[in-house]
């Protein structure tokens, strides 16, 4: 038999490869992000110097940052409820005894499997002014064309529509799994009682699906902060930053403007946002999800 002490040593040795890689690419960089946010970016003429909270003051005075934060919040809190609502509807339908149920599920889920870059390529066709599909449909209905991605008032909504299209089917599978675990007697009982469908949904299904909803909610919010791939194809953040989101702005600062320390400061904001969601997750989810 192996002694307790040897077991402890083996345990650590088994963990070591994974944990050291993780330390190098997750934990250490998280710490250095905070550290680097306290310095100015060095240039050829002037080397990097300690700036205290200078970068953070700059954040508050940066109109682009303010706009980016506004966009990010609209993007996250616009796409998430819409995707979840659609996901729920899809799941309810995909769970019914409808003809071609398998095909329905397939249609709803397929966008999930595509890379965001490919999705953006496809959607670019729809938004292109005049020759794009959206404008073609509009003009054939007697409307007039519109530069969807060139207009600051519509561009963010276009990004959001594309995102909802890609994400809803993914969230659907969580609802579908939850629905399939529900006992069929519930519905039969409600039917016998003569409960209307809407009442059955509101009073029985929806409350029972609450743990799934909360769970999907947290995960989709976490996810939404990181969805920027389509910006590279559709808008590059424009026009006039109307579709710029936080992670894309970080990318721009680091790799287009070469202002890495400001990018680090922006990353701190991102990390704090994720931390807030994480705290909510522990507070909200862990307490309320376990009643089943």
């Amino acid at each position, binding site marked *: 038999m192996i002694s307790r002490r040897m077991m402890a040593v083996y*345990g650590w040795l*088994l963990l070591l490869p994974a944990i050291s890689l993780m330390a190098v*690419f997750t934990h250490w960089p998280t710490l250095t992000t905070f550290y680097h946010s306290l310095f100015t970016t060095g240039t050829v003429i002037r080397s990097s110097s300690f700036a205290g909270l200078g970068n953070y003051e700059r954040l508050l005075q940066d109109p682009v940052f303010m706009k980016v934060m506004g966009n990010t919040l609209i993007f996250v809190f616009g796409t998430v409820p819409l995707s979840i609502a659609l996901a729920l509807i899809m799941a309810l339908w995909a769970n019914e005894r*409808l003809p071609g149920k398998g*095909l329905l599920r397939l249609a709803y889920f397929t966008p999930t499997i595509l890379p965001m870059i490919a999705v953006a390529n496809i959607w670019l066709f729809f938004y292109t002014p005049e020759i794009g599909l959206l404008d073609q449909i509009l003009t054939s209905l007697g409307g007039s064309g519109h530069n969807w991605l060139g207009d600051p008032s519509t561009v963010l909504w276009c990004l959001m529509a594309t995102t909802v299209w890609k994400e809803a089917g993914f969230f659907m599978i969580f609802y579908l*799994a939850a629905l399939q675990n529900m006992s069929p007697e519930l519905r039969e009982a409600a039917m016998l009682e003569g409960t209307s469908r809407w009442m059955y949904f509101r009073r029985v299904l929806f409350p029972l699906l609450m743990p799934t909803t909360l769970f999907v909610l947290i995960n989709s919010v976490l996810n939404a902060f990181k969805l920027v*791939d389509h910006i590279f194809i559709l808008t590059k953040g424009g026009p006039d930053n109307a579709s710029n989101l936080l992670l894309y702005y970080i*990318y721009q600062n*680091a790799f287009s403007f070469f202002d890495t320390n400001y990018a680090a400061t922006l990353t701190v904001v991102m990390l704090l946002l994720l931390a807030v969601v*994480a705290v909510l997750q522990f507070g909200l989810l862990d307490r309320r999800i376990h009643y089943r």
Partner: protein
Amino acid sequence: MKKVQAMHILDGAGAWLLAVLWIAPLLYAFWAAFHPPEFAVNFSLLAPLSLENFVLAWEQAPFARYFLNTFVLVTMILSAQLVLCTLAAYAFARFEFPGREVMFYVVLLQLMVVPEVLIVENYNTLAELHLIDTILGIGLPYMASAFGIFLLRQSFKTVPRELEDAARVEGCGLWGVLFRVYVPVARPTYLAYCLVSISYHWNNFLWPLVVTNSVETRPLTVGLAIFGAPESGVDWSVLSAGTLLAVAPLLLAFFLFQRQFMQSFLHTGVK
């Protein structure tokens, strides 16, 4: 009863309307890719089918090389993940050591702070390691995966102690127990994890974009983004063909193994 039937028909109609709406963008891409450019926005049943767009796309960009890069990348990440995550999960599931609980939370932190968020610092680290513009460089931050460790640990924990003891009596050492008892039990989890990992890294874009700057290292997604850039002047039909080329292997795998894919993606909801 009539009312119920009417509702049922209405349900079916709604469900199918949404399904058609949902799949339409993809169908449109197929339409554009398989027809000559003059039919890209002209839907005529008489439009001739053609593979010309695929030929053009294949000639205009080094797709073969991109395919190879993505294949190497995905294989490399997955094999490293399987080894590292198996070892770590084994440690968490069956070894008692001081700091185990704390380390588990330390690992789980990565579920939140994914490598994409840390592109700035990780790029610097990679530069110091002289790994910029290498496929290894794209893969490194993903090899130790908190998600994989978590899933496998959950699965390993379901193994009854008696099974392990029996294997010990039969003369299995620590490695024997891992490979004869734990790994076989966790087979469905491994399958789910593989599918999720493959589709994630096949589709991943931001980090590979940051790290690569040559044809020899670029994965498909980055290649596709360059191919589709307005500067490159390709038309819709060719772009559609290129896009479909890039997604074809994964899409095909998905159509063949739908059930497994959906089951696997369900696991991404780590609880």
